[in-house]
């Protein structure tokens, strides 16, 4: 199957919502197994775990905020509220990107 993408019709986001979902499911199982249900503790401060968790944060932010964006599209009719919520999506994304970065990068040092 070929996926045609063009600017502004949302098809890239449709596809990437699915791709990020698959990746998140895989990462989540590893995260839960290693961090929350693990028998032996893992060194979360190691570079590979930092990269792993930072990738997790970025994929999650995309997936969560795209989900939120779609709900705004579906449910919010009032123009200014809609624009404000789109703005809020970007703000939350940037803030949590920074939060994730400053939490993970110096982690364990």
């Amino acid at each position, binding site marked *: 199957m070929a996926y045609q993408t063009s600017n502004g019709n949302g098809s890239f986001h449709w596809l990437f919502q699915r791709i990020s979902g698959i990746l998140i*499911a895989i990462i989540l199982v590893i995260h839960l197994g290693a961090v929350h249900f693990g028998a032996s503790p893992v060194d979360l401060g190691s570079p590979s775990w930092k990269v792993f968790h930072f990738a997790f944060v970025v994929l999650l932010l995309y997936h*969560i905020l795209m989900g939120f964006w779609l709900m705004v599209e579906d*449910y919010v009719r009032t123009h200014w509220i809609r624009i404000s919520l789109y703005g809020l999506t970007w703000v939350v994304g940037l803030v*949590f990107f920074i*939060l*994730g970065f400053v*939490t993970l990068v*110096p*982690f364990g040092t």
Partner: protein
Amino acid sequence: MRYRWQTGATAWLIHRITGAAVGIYLLLHILGQFGMKYGGLEGLRDFLTAKPVVIILLAFLIYHALNGVRELIVDFGNGALYHKKLFWVMMVIGVVVYVATLTAL
């Protein structure tokens, strides 16, 4: 917006509700880890790790993941032909995974 209470539409609506809830939880989880690194937000971490919260989170998470897999099969495979049956198959798998996860808590 009005919803018809049929399997597909209901599954989709629950997908949204569980997605919103799990999404908020995971954002708070990131915030909590930030607090752990730089001090503070103990109350938030206590809330996120409270047993009732975790029990609900796991149910929502397992639903969202399995219904997501179902949507993938519908979108990329021929799941549209049997999406209702697929829903119930996923729910059975979900209950098994949920019980196994709760036992391991």
